[in-house]
């Protein structure tokens, strides 16, 4: 079905709004900057947004739908990123397409992309219905994105169960929107809480970062330049780990040393 060395990676979460599309855009750009050829496939036919986050919304002529229908060639539908030309976007089709697209269609598209690219990142729609199943059918491995909140973790758990039953593996975890201060004060699920509950290997930790919003405003992913903000660095590290580099994961809620952390340790030690 696929060429031997392409990696077809699904980026999914179950719950909406946890950062799938932001991760796909940043990871795609970071991988491309690290010398890989990358295609990002927007599999969210209902609510497509990947074009917007990559700043490519004005350059779309054809979509995945046209490729499937045979009205254009794959090369015509692919939108190459200006600053990072080793990254191409295959836009999602019209929302009306949703009803008659099948898992086989998605497999066909993924196979076409796998002939030309080393990495194919599939941005999955939220939910666990047909849109998810179609997108997952095209993938060989997956990254589950979640945040340290009960609803996001619960939905991620459902998705992990489905991925396991579909034979997608490895499945790795990116914990997004981490607030180190709240975690340290035990006002938020900790990193180990989430990894223990979901029982997945951790691929990355991304801190809550205002610059993410600024970058989406501009349509310029944080990884486009040399990242200087916490989230940008985290996305870059996710890309490096995905390529096999052993980049250690630092938990920012336990990272701080010195007096403050010692005081915090004292404050959280059981006294009775």
């Amino acid at each position, binding site marked *: 079905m696929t060429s031997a060395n392409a990696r077809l990676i699904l980026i999914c979460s179950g719950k909406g709004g946890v950062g799938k599309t932001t991760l796909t855009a940043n990871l795609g750009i970071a991988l491309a900057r690290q010398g890989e050829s990358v295609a990002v496939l927007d599999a969210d036919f209902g609510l497509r947004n990947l074009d917007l986050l990559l700043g490519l919304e004005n350059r779309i002529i054809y979509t995945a739908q046209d490729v499937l229908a045979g009205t254009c060639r794959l090369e015509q539908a692919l939108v190459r990123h200006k600053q990072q030309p080793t990254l191409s976007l295959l836009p999602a089709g019209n929302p009306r397409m949703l009803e008659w697209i099948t898992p086989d269609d998605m497999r066909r598209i993924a196979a076409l992309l796998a002939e030309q690219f080393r990495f194919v990142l599939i941005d999955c729609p939220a939910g666990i219905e047909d849109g998810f199943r179609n997108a997952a059918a095209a993938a060989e491995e997956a990254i589950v994105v979640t945040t340290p909140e009960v609803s996001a973790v619960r939905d991620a758990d459902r998705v992990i169960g489905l991925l396991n039953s579909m034979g997608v593996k490895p499945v790795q975890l990116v914990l997004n929107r981490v607030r180190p201060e709240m975690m340290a004060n035990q006002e938020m*699920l900790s990193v180990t809480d989430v990894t223990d509950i979901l029982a997945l290997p951790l691929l990355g930790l991304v801190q809550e970062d205002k610059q993410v919003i600024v970058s989406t405003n501009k349509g310029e992913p944080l990884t486009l330049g040399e990242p200087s903000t916490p989230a940008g660095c985290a996305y870059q590290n996710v890309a490096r780990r995905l390529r096999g580099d052993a980049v250690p994961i630092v938990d920012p809620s336990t990272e701080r040393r010195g007096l403050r952390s010692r005081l915090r340790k004292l404050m959280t030690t059981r*006294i*009775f």
Partner: protein
Amino acid sequence: MALMDFINRLLGRQAPSASTARQRLQLVLAHDRSDLNPELLEQMRREILEVVSRYVEIDTAAGDVSLETEDRVTALVANLPILRARPVEPAPPDETGPPAEQPPVPPEPEWVEPPAD
């Protein structure tokens, strides 16, 4: 209780909620993963208690049958405090089958319980 909880309480601040989140999540995931609805679980719980109480007298009020989950494996955990063993009379007698072998009588039954009907 940690020192921080104590100070929080003194100052009237809200207690850290991460452990509450963890507990609620573990409970809801155990149910999600097993795909058992609460009524079915309740029915199973009742039947388990019924079967067990044929053999031993259990404290049904303190007893607990629940789902627990760890490492994506869900387990049914029954915690049933035994008050005392019932004398003889194990399973309901099988009327058609061959006579069941009498199980060993517990040593020195000091009390006699009327068989449950």
